[in-house]
């Protein structure tokens, strides 16, 4: 086990940043699940709200993408 400690920190940090993807997954699941719950109550109104669904998913996902970016920066840029 040799190697410099800074490199180990990069890998640990990138792994920790992956937690952010899981958090984003919770957010996306929340949006989609609530949309489905609402859509099953009133299916006739669901078709008009798919755009809102995708906007909500996109905003929830953006923060997960930031954590992915942090991981990439740690691996390749630092």
């Amino acid at each position: 086990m040799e190697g410099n400690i800074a490199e180990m920190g990069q890998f640990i940090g990138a792994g920790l940043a992956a937690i952010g993807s899981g958090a984003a997954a919770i957010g996306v699941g929340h949006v989609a699940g609530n949309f489905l719950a609402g859509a099953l109550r009133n299916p006739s109104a669901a078709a008009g709200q798919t755009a809102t669904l995708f906007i909500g998913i996109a905003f929830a996902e953006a923060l997960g993408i930031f954590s992915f970016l942090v991981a990439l920066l740690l691996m390749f840029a630092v």
Partner: protein
Amino acid sequence: MANEEQNSDGLEFHPMDQFIVKPLFGEIGDPVHIYTVTNVTLWLAITVLAVIGLLVMTTTKRSVIPSRGQAVAEMAYGFVYKMVEDVTGKDGVKYFPYIMTLFVFILCANFLGLIPMAFTTTSHIAVTAVMGFGVFFAVTILGFLKNGSSFLSLFWVSSAPLALRPILAIIELISYFVRPVSHSIRLAGNMMAGHAVLKVFAGFAQVSGGMALLIVPVSILGVVAVYALEVLVSFIQAYVFTILTCVYLKDALHPHH
């Protein structure tokens, strides 16, 4: 990609190698200048040709009963037109050509990137940031041209209590300037992550060694499943990029909360 030489004994496959920009002509190690023809420029050009093939070639000989190509082109047109009209309203339809261009270009780039051995141009932040910041600057300039200084009321949430408004203004300002970053990185990150996952699944077969008979079928099934997911993601990300452009455009045209 800096420390790939050091840990080459650990991983025999390099899932990120597919995103390396290489010059098409000359030696492998040649520096990439701004005028160098690289695999990125080649695939961007192929994307443009694909868009022309889809939208121009199929609609030059129009007929009442559409051919297959014409039907696809009309469907894409109708899809984007309805999206722009629904999100931005009647006065946003003027900017439909720009949004249609973005949608078809990103869609073709994503789908062409899925061809084996192809280069996914949209997986590079340099490519998507040009589109993301283009949207950002266009929308900001348009907002000020249309509304003058009252465009700034976008940041002043008049429905909130007065004491909260300065704090909300700061948050709104930050979120406004983060828009182009998240807008472009969402597309690039999704494409890059998906293609890297494809390579990782393929790499399982490569490193399976003695257990190849057990692992290779699983690996192939995994690649097929992820590939199918990627086809879906390619479309959804193009859709999300364009619909967010529509939302930003709506903010610029009607900044009042």
